[in-house]
């Protein structure tokens, strides 16, 4: 047997590995936030837009859910320069991950909005809210309760999906492990170390997620205005969303 704990532990706190772990974290957070923006936008376009906007949203969702994120990243970084669009590694990684995530989140957000009882729309219109006021003050805060648990799972997925950005030489955890493996050829130790880091990050996120979900269940008990059909729809979207990576 040729396993060295010494290499394993030294890799765990190796500067390259630490930088990689940090990159994985911020890349995930930034891509998730941008993805959320794109997802809200696409969901709104699909639900409330005119025919053209609906078509654009549906095309976007279809395209990015229907192709591997690995191909999306490679096309953005190595393919686009051919037509004159040059993006840095970091820009490409963020753009690719966010675009991909947005397509999945759009469906989750859409079913979250649809899970809010129609009576809420009636009531907010009856006191004279405009569409925007209705969305911000009444619909989205309630949709958030149904959206947040699947959103947490998507972020869990995102932490691991970022490893694909190593292919376009983004120096995150996976790439750090690759580089370490090439220095001393301790392949098993370096990749195991990276795996340990992913486990640690995902576990920490899991603990944060539990708190966030608990917080959102507090003020008015389990989602109050959710119809059973909408719940079913949401579950479907979540299951489809689970295969993001």
């Amino acid at each position, binding site marked *: 047997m040729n396993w060295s704990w010494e290499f394993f532990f030294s890799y765990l706190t190796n500067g390259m590995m630490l930088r990689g772990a940090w990159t994985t974290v911020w890349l995930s957070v930034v891509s998730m936030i941008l993805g959320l923006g794109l997802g809200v936008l696409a969901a709104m376009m699909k639900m409330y837009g005119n025919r053209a906007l609906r078509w654009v949203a549906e095309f976007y969702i279809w395209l990015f859910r229907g192709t591997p994120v690995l191909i999306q990243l490679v096309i953005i970084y190595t393919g686009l320069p051919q037509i004159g669009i040059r993006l840095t590694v970091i820009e490409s990684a963020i753009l690719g991950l966010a675009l991909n995530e947005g397509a999945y989140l759009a469906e989750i957000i859409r079913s979250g909005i649809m899970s809010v009882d129609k009576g809420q729309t009636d009531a907010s219109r009856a006191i004279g809210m405009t569409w925007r006021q209705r969305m911000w003050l009444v619909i989205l805060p*309630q949709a958030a309760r149904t959206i947040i648990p699947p959103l947490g799972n998507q972020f869990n997925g995102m932490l691991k999906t970022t490893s694909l950005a190593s292919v376009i030489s983004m120096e995150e955890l996976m790439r750090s492990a690759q580089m370490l493996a090439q220095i001393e050829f301790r392949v098993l130790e370096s990749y195991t170390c990276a795996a340990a880091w992913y486990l640690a990050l995902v576990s920490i996120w899991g603990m944060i997620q539990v708190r966030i979900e608990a917080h959102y269940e507090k003020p008015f008990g389990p989602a109050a205005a959710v119809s059973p059909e909408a719940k079913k729809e949401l579950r479907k979207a979540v299951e489809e969303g689970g295969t993001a990576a």
Partner: protein
Amino acid sequence: MTMQETQLAPRSRAGRDLGEPIVLIEGVEKRFGDNHVLKDVSITVRQGEVVVICGRSGSGKSTLLRCIDHLETIDGGTIRAAGHLMGMREKNGKRVPLKDAEIARQQRDLGMVFQNFNLFPHISVIENITLGPVRIQKRPKAEAREEARALLARVGLPDKENAYPRQLSGGQQQRVAIARALAMKPKVMLFDEPTSALDPEMISEVLDVMVDLSRQGMTMIVVTHEMGFARAAADRVILMHDGRIVEEADPETFFTKPESEHTRLFLSKILSH
């Protein structure tokens, strides 16, 4: 019941001074696909008047109420309410549909109470009431809260301002919903079967608030099966059948010598319950 009747009867029969017409419904048509829900419906409601609309389910009464508040768009005719041509604007003699924000502005002058209360479950009772005044009418928060407390006292829930809707009974929720609508200072209040989703013992607490409101001169259009309320508070009772108005009379006439066969049938069914 009889005592209450004699006590309250003068109000409706004395022919109080009613103001100018404030809701004018003219020749309204509404279809849901092939389903012709409202057929040439015309009603005029004067300021301070209380009109009760009843009828079997599917007769179009709730749809009519929703059309008045422009929660549904009409396919023909016109609805003027609180000085607005609902959902429309006249431009060189032509009618043009209004934009979202303009419709919202019209709706602020009408209050609506729903069968299922539809309180906002994610915010507290007082926030439910102040949301409109603060976020829509942009009034100072302190002032809005003070008014909200006064409204809560008026509907008999002075100690519930920090409760969440789910912690309240149906009757309490409906009273908060009435307070929420009143907080916008509407010129007309619309009630869509406000007691139909309530347990029997809670119906009267909501009706009491409504009777009280009618006595203070609020213009009210109430879709309900509560004939006790109609007798006690209504100036006029309307029966709808199959999308049309088939009877329109003062309560006395409506209950004792209705003209339409539909009314007699409706009354015999509802009173035998």
